[in-house]
């Protein structure tokens, strides 16, 4: 070597690619509704299960979900975790709860934040409701629902989680 320098052993390789991302037809219909403050699911024409958020198909049957179903703001905790580390690119401070919640009227859970709760009191089967952002902040985004919070309703028996009608426990 012509100069007394350290040998190169590591390099930084920036790989940045630009995309124009498209939401997908079924997710776009869902997002258009959530922009209006309405949580919707989509029903499988074959097995009748209601999916939220819809991804384009009923994974079980492999067919498109067309029929839109308005879901309740109320939901049930199917399971949860208390997270002690930050989410990349997310300002929320740990510890926080993320829960698998099933909105009444749907047959599948999705992961969302829980708040306004004592972390230790959260449990499987607990009843919760969606707390929305102020209307002026609504966008084509799931986080129009800022978080879920507990409500004073009896627990849902485990075998009933994911099977409640849109009218909830009383329905």
């Amino acid at each position, binding site marked *: 070597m012509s100069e007394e320098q350290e040998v190169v052993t590591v390099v930084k390789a920036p790989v940045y690619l630009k995309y124009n991302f498209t939401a997908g037809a079924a997710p776009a219909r869902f997002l258009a509704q959530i922009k209006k403050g309405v949580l919707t699911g989509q029903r499988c024409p074959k097995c009748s299960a209601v999916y939220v958020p819809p*991804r384009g198909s009923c994974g079980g049957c492999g067919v498109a979900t067309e029929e839109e179903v308005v879901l309740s703001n109320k939901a049930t905790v199917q*399971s949860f975790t208390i997270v002690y580390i930050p989410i*990349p690119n997310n300002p929320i401070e740990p510890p926080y709860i993320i829960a698998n919640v099933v909105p009444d009227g749907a047959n599948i859970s999705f992961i969302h934040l829980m708040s306004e709760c004592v972390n230790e009191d959260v449990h499987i089967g607990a009843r919760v409701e969606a707390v929305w952002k102020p209307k002026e902040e609504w966008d084509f985004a799931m*986080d129009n629902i800022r978080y879920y919070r507990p409500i004073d309703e009896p627990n849902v028996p485990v075998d009933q989680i994911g099977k409640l009608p849109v009218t909830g426990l009383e329905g």
Partner: protein
Amino acid sequence: MANLAAVVGIGQTKYMTKRLDVSIAGLVREAAVNALQDADLTWDDIDAVILGKAPDMFEGVIMPEAYLTDALGCNGKPMLRVHTAGSVGGSTALVAASHVQSGMFKRVLTVAFEKQSESNAMWALSNPQPFSTHLNAGAGGYFAPIIREYMRRSNAPYNVGIKVAVKDRLHGARNPLAHLQKPDITMQEVEDSFMLWDPIRFLEACPSSDGACAMIIANEELADKSAKKPAWIRGVAMRSEPTMFAGRDEVNPQAGRDCAADVYKQAGITDPRKDLDCAEVYVPFSWYEPMWLENLGFAPEGEGWKLTMEGATSLDEGGDIPWNCSGGVLSSNAIGASGMIRFAEAARQVRGDAGAHQVEGAKLALGHAYGGGAQFFAMWVVGSEKP
């Protein structure tokens, strides 16, 4: 009926956080050369190469088999690239085996790798896309609620995961290739480690490793003449189910149960705990040991944790069915390679070549991998004797 095939060479790298001394090709190459040496073969003896790794975004090289051709001596030969998420190392071994079992090839090389230090696996997986309708809190955020549901169903005591975390690290301390070397680890140390995603503590989760694993699989004629004792492939199976569908049992996925039933049937196994001598099972979070003990039929539903707590899966406690003698994924996790390491370590056991983590007289072993939202499964059973 499938043609007979056997593992005749195994090569691995030392697993560690960062392999800063090699290129991506150098890492993959090291495992491949070790496998050739183990089999006492040269590059000319290889008819095809089957490569596996998890998403290309981990290293930022698209379809890297194109670039890795020369490092794997593949110029002029067939090269196939498999990607089935976290199960890919296992799936790749199965695709490699099928090259021989189909009768179309005599001897093939298969390699799986991940050089996670090139990026940050968390980054690639949680890359925020527009319109994402799912909150992404990493793999732990996905699996922790499933573990919690298992705890509820089984009434398992809180420290089952802690016990697995200790057991697999003690196993890992017997394996010089294992990433984590913690011969003095205690239950207290694991319990005191930082809670990440309740109930998963830091020491109950796998590390992030660089590493590669390679195997050479040969047909019956060549395996009969192999330099070292071959590991005969006695059964192969894969199963997939969708990530989400109404009524899916995420704790005890049917795809895993069906896959196990298929591979056991081929290998003539009716009672896995009794018939198998050991198992290498993909356990990236400690609680997945009791969950998979049930899913794979080693214990009745709700009772997997009892085997763990009794020491049945521990080499150090003289258990009757040691799991993850190599230290498992909890001791080394080079994602794309992790499944193949399970398959290769199962083969090492039945070849009697597992060094300090050898199960005495092991004749039949299970290799297992899973991926995605615990929805993709790959398994094989290898034996010391021809079927």
